[in-house]
């Protein structure tokens, strides 16, 4: 079976007054129907990775190298109509801020139907009934009435449900979710996460879920890839990442979650801040903040080690037994 996603040596630079090396040599592969969480802090390249996948980066200012295949199709070569068919048809996206992503002057039914008409070539009536069905599937109460509402008439949680309905209306093979629950309250966030989990099972699509919150990643995904300074520094199943994190940065992130820290106890915070990425990293980008850095870490990029099947970690220390600390 073809891989759902095969990304090889992706590099993204933004040019302008200063160059930003946003993505540095990222490779990623996904099987059909897999749920992957991209975990990282702001500026780590999570969102840029998603935007590259949809071809949403401004072409004049960004320089993209590497190859991306979705279901065997080279998406870097897509132009014009083919690109339009791919966006929203094959791959679609749910954004963080549904209030900004939805068009305020059209009803939500109209917006979903428009996408269905474009991609499936059906008439308006059929498209509207698909829209109604989608609103039902994302558990919007009295969907029939809501179909004719404008985005401002809905609450934040409802708007995010509409975004999900819109993204899934054309049955994409891959759903990209860019922090879709960050702007929501905790009680609504968990509703949306469980809804996405159900829909993923029902439709069998693959999901890439971008988040900065490890707890959210655990709730939604089977696999986790941790990003830092535009690189994937560790990847594994959610189980492996939570129970057996090998990279010091991942370990630091887990500790910073405060899940079971005693009150008032000093936190083992990662010092400093992520690098600015004005130059392409030529040594381990985490070394300046790393509690267990060695001279070798500052000399060269760390090798990508593979301690298990589809498990990888970019750290010299991961090669040694953990007792060394």
């Amino acid at each position, binding site marked *: 079976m073809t891989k759902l996603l095969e990304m090889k040596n992706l590099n993204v630079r933004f040019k302008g007054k200063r160059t930003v090396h946003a993505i540095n040599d990222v490779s990623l592969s996904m099987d059909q129907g897999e749920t992957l969480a991209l975990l990282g*802090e702001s500026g780590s390249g999570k969102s840029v990775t998603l935007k590259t996948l949809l071809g949403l980066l401004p072409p004049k200012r960004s320089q993209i190298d590497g190859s991306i295949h979705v279901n065997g199709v080279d998406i870097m070569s897509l132009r014009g109509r083919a690109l339009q068919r791919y966006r929203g048809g094959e791959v679609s996206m749910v954004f963080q801020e549904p209030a900004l992503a939805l068009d305020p002057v059209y009803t939500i039914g109209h917006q979903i139907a428009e996408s269905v008409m474009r991609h499936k070539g059906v008439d308006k009536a059929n498209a509207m009934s698909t829209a109604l069905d989608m609103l039902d599937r994302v558990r919007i109460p009295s969907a029939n009435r809501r179909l004719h509402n404008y985005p401002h008439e809905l609450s*934040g949680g409802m708007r995010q449900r509409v975004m999900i309905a819109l993204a899934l209306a054309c049955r994409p093979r891959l759903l990209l979710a860019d922090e879709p629950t960050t702007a929501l309250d905790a*009680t*609504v966030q968990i509703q949306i996460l469980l809804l996405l989990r159900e829909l993923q099972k029902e439709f069998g699509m693959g999901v890439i879920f971008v988040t900065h919150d490890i*707890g959210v990643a655990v709730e939604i995904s089977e696999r986790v890839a941790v990003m830092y300074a535009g690189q994937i520094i560790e990847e594994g199943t959610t189980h492996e990442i*939570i129970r057996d994190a090998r990279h010091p940065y991942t370990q630091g992130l887990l500790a*910073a979650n405060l899940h079971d820290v005693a009150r*008032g106890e000093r*936190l083992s915070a990662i010092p400093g801040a992520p690098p600015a990425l004005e130059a392409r990293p030529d040594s381990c980008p985490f070394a300046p*903040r790393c509690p267990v850095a060695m001279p070798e870490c500052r000399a060269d990029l760390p090798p990508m080690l593979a301690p298990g099947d589809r498990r990888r970690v970019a750290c010299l220390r991961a090669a040694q037994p953990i007792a060394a600390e």
Partner: protein
Amino acid sequence: MSVTDTYQPTPDTGGPAQPLIRVTGLQKYFPVRGGILGRTQAKVQAVDGVSFEVKKGETLGIVGESGCGKSTTAKLLIGLVEKDKGEIVFDGHALGERLSLKELRRGVQMVFQDSYATLNPRLTILDSVAFGAKVQGLDNPEELARKMMDRVGLDPDRFAHRYPHELSGGQRQRVNIARALAMSPRLVVLDEAVSALDKSVEAQVLNLLNDLRAEFGLTYVFISHDLNVVRYISDRILVMYLGEVVEVAPVDSIWQEQAHPYTRSLFSAMPSMDPDNRTKEPPLAGDPPNPINPPSGCRFHTRCRFASAVCKEAVPKLAGLARNGDHMVACHLHDAQSGHPKAGQGVPE
């Protein structure tokens, strides 16, 4: 001279037994205007009858969903929003009687969530930090500002003449903390002060807040939606729902037993952090109701699994639990006389 010596808060007046700040029956309704005449058409009941006190040296955590009145309460505490009703007493002096707004702000300072929006983009970091001390007429504000910057981990020689846009989010939030502390306040209100920061930076700022509290004998009101953070930093937790206090309790007590059904739902909504034991069912359906027309009686009854007829009619009173009087809850289930069919039995499993 160290920074601790330059820290000169207003003197303590009532001794350790007197709460540092006590609010009673605090109320704030925001008018919603509309129509061509701009008449008030409705009122957002942002904060309705909120009472609590914060002891000296204590940290009170306030949690709740968006729109529950957390931030309005914070703004009322430092007089950024004028209260409709209620009383604010700072160390025995009631605001508006023996205490002016300016005096209150000498004793109470605030750190906001958005570190960028709350700094004047045209002022250097040093000017921003020294600004409040200048307004209050403290001695040598710039010297004070430099010392405070140094204390929060920003080298004054490197950062004093920079502008807010040249700093990272974590550094800007340190500036905001330095600015608040330059006034030598006794109470600092932290409104989602670490929420916008990345996790690794958040831990650094939390460590800093803990150190500063010990060093300057500070009292915090810490507002956040992140329960783990609130548990870590607070001594007591106050839970708000639609402008009202539904539960106040010491951290350990509330972590052990959430006495209000809303608090319980809020706690179960936290991601599990256990891949083998993920959340199976959302604890609450739907969004919080609109605070313009909050439900009658207990405001939570529309989303509560245990609601009965009495919950729609009568407003539950905040009262101590039988097993622990410090653990206060406003729920008919805990009041034996409320008339709820399961009254006095506590929240069922």
